[in-house]
C-alpha cells in the first residue's frame, strides 16, 4: 500500500490528515489492510464472559474475520449469556481446558486483574495469540514476566488500551507532536463518578467473585481500572516515561456501606525527566467534572476527551475600525479602576475552543464496561489482523506495559506513602510514539 492509498484509507477511518509513519500500528485498521486478509478467519476463544467479555463479543459478531469457537467462564450465568451469541462454541468452566483446544488460535482474556498474568502466560505457552484486557498484570514482576515471555515465544500480545486506536486521540497527538500547542508543560487526567462501583450480587457468597474490583486481593482499584488508560497520555504526548511517582489514596465514602478495601479516592503525580508533571485524580463520590484528559502546552491546550483545542495566544483583534469602536465603547462603559484585579485567575478556558476534527464521539467515562467509538473495536480488529499475519505491531505493547507499571507503581507509592521510581529491572526498551 502506498502513502496516498493509506491516507485515503485514513480518511475513511475518520483519521484524515494523520501521517502514517507516526502511527504504524494503525495500518491494520485501514480498509486496504483489511482487504489483504479478506476471507481469512481467526478462531477465537474467550476467557471471561462478564461485562467486558460480552462487550467484545458484540463487536466480534460484526466481524467476518472472527469465529468464536470456545467460551470459558466459571460463573454459569455469564457463560450462558455469551453462548447465546455463539451457540456452536464449546463451553468451558476451566480456562486450562480451553487452552488445550487445538482449534483455538487466539484468546481474549477479560477476567479480573489478578488472573491476567497467569492466564496470559498459560495461553502463550499453549501456543495461542493473546488479547488480554488492561491492566497487563496485578504486580510489577508479573507484568515483566509476561513482557519477557511474549518476546521469547514470539507471540502476538495485545492489551486492552484502546486509546491508541481512537481517532480523536491519534489526531490530537499528531497535532501535539507538530507543536500546535507549543512545548508540553503539563498533563492533567481525572476520572470522577458518583456511584458505588458495585455490581448486583445474586447471593452473598458471590460478593468477591462479582465485585472483585473492590478487593485488593484481586484488583488494584482505581489505578489499574481507570488510571492505566489515562497514564498513556503523558508518554504519548512527550515521548518519555515518568521518572518518579507520588500519590495519596484513601477510603473516604463507600467503605461506610461495604467491606471494600481499595481506595475510593486517589491522587497521583508523575514527574517526567524534563520536570513536567502529569496528574491523575479519581473520586467516585462526586461526578461533577466527569472524565478529563488535557495536554497543556505553552501555546494552548488540547482536551483529549472532547477533542477540543484551546489557544493561549491572543485572539486576532479585528479591523482597525473595529478596534477603534471597541476602544470608544470601553471608554464609555468602564468604571474607573484604581488597581488591576490581581486576584482574578488568568484563564483561556472560557474562550471558544476549536474542535480538532469532525464528528467527534465524546465518551463520558461513566460506564465501567466500555463505550462505543472509543477505539475498542479498532483495537480488536487490529488484534485479529495481527493473529492472521502473525505480526506484533510496533510499540503498542510497550505503551501498555508502562501504563500498567506506572499505575501499579503509583498504587504502591500511595500504600507506602513514598516517592517511587521504577526499578531498573522493570525497564524494557521503549521507543516513543512520536
Amino acid at each position: 500500500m502506498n502513502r496516498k492509498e493509506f491516507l485515503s484509507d485514513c480518511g475513511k477511518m475518520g483519521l484524515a490528515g494523520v501521517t502514517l509513519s507516526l502511527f504504524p500500528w494503525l495500518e491494520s485498521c485501514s480498509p486496504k489492510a483489511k482487504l489483504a486478509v479478506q476471507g481469512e478467519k481467526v478462531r477465537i476463544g474467550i476467557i471471561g464472559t462478564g461485562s467486558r467479555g460480552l462487550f467484545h463479543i458484540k463487536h466480534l459478531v460484526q466481524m467476518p474475520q472472527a469465529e468464536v469457537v470456545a467460551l470459558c467462564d466459571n460463573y454459569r450465568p455469564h457463560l450462558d449469556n455469551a453462548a447465546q451469541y455463539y451457540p456452536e462454541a464449546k463451553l468451558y468452566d476451566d480456562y486450562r481446558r480451553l487452552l488445550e483446544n487445538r482449534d483455538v488460535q487466539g484468546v481474549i482474556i477479560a477476567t479480573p486483574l489478578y488472573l491476567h498474568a497467569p492466564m496470559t502466560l498459560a495461553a502463550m505457552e499453549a501456543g495461542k495469540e493473546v488479547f488480554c484486557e488492561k491492566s497487563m498484570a496485578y504486580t510489577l514482576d508479573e507484568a515483566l514476566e509476561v513482557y519477557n515471555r511474549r518476546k521469547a515465544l514470539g507471540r502476538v500480545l495485545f492489551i486492552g488500551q484502546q486509546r491508541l486506536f481512537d481517532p480523536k486521540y491519534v489526531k490530537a497527538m499528531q497535532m501535539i507532536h507538530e507543536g500546535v500547542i507549543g512545548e508540553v508543560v503539563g498533563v492533567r487526567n481525572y476520572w470522577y463518578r458518583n456511584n458505588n462501583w458495585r455490581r448486583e450480587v445474586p447471593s452473598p457468597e458471590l460478593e468477591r467473585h462479582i465485585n472483585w474490583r473492590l478487593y485488593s486481593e484481586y484488583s488494584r482499584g482505581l489505578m489499574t481500572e481507570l488510571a492505566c488508560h489515562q497514564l498513556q497520555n503523558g508518554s504519548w504526548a512527550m515521548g518519555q516515561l515518568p521518572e518518579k511517582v507520588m500519590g495519596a489514596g484513601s477510603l473516604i465514602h463507600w467503605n461506610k456501606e461495604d467491606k471494600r478495601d481499595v481506595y475510593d479516592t486517589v491522587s497521583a503525580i508523575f514527574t517526567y525527566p524534563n520536570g513536567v508533571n502529569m496528574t491523575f485524580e479519581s473520586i467516585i463520590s462526586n461526578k461533577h467534572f466527569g472524565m478529563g484528559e488535557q495536554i497543556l502546552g505553552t501555546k494552548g491546550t488540547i482536551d483529549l476527551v472532547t477533542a477540543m483545542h484551546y489557544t493561549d495566544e491572543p485572539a486576532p483583534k479585528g479591523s482597525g475600525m473595529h478596534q477603534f469602536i471597541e476602544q470608544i465603547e470601553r471608554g464609555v462603559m468602564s468604571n474607573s479602576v484604581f488597581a488591576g484585579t490581581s486576584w482574578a485567575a488568568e484563564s483561556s478556558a472560557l474562550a471558544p475552543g476549536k474542535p480538532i476534527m469532525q464528528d467527534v464521539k465524546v465518551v463520558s467515562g461513566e460506564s465501567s464496561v466500555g463505550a462505543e467509538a472509543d477505539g475498542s473495536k479498532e483495537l480488536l480488529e487490529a488484534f485479529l489482523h495481527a493473529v492472521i499475519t502473525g505480526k506484533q505491531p510496533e510499540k503498542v505493547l510497550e505503551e501498555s506495559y508502562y501504563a500498567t507499571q506506572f499505575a501499579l507503581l503509583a498504587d504502591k507509592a500511595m500504600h507506602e506513602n513514598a516517592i517511587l521510581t521504577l526499578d531498573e529491572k522493570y525497564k524494557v526498551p521503549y521507543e516513543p510514539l512520536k
Partner: protein
Amino acid sequence: MKDSVITAEMKRRELKLWLVCFVIANVVNWCSIIKFATPWYEIFTQVGYVVSLSLVIYALIALARIAWWLLHYTFRK
C-alpha cells in the same frame, strides 16, 4: 396642516452633507488603520463600517440641526 415640500435644492444639500460625513468616516477609518497598524486594504473591506459611521455622523448632525431649529423657533416667538 400645511403640505411640506422637499425641493431639489434641499435634496442636493442633504446629499452633500452626507458626502461630507462619508469623507469624515473615511478619515476615521484611515486614522484607525494607522493607529492600530492594520492592513491598508481595510479602506475597501471596512466600507460597510464606514457607511454606517457616516450615517451615524449624519444622524448626529441632524439631531444638532433639529435642536438648533427648536431653539431658534422658541426664541423667535
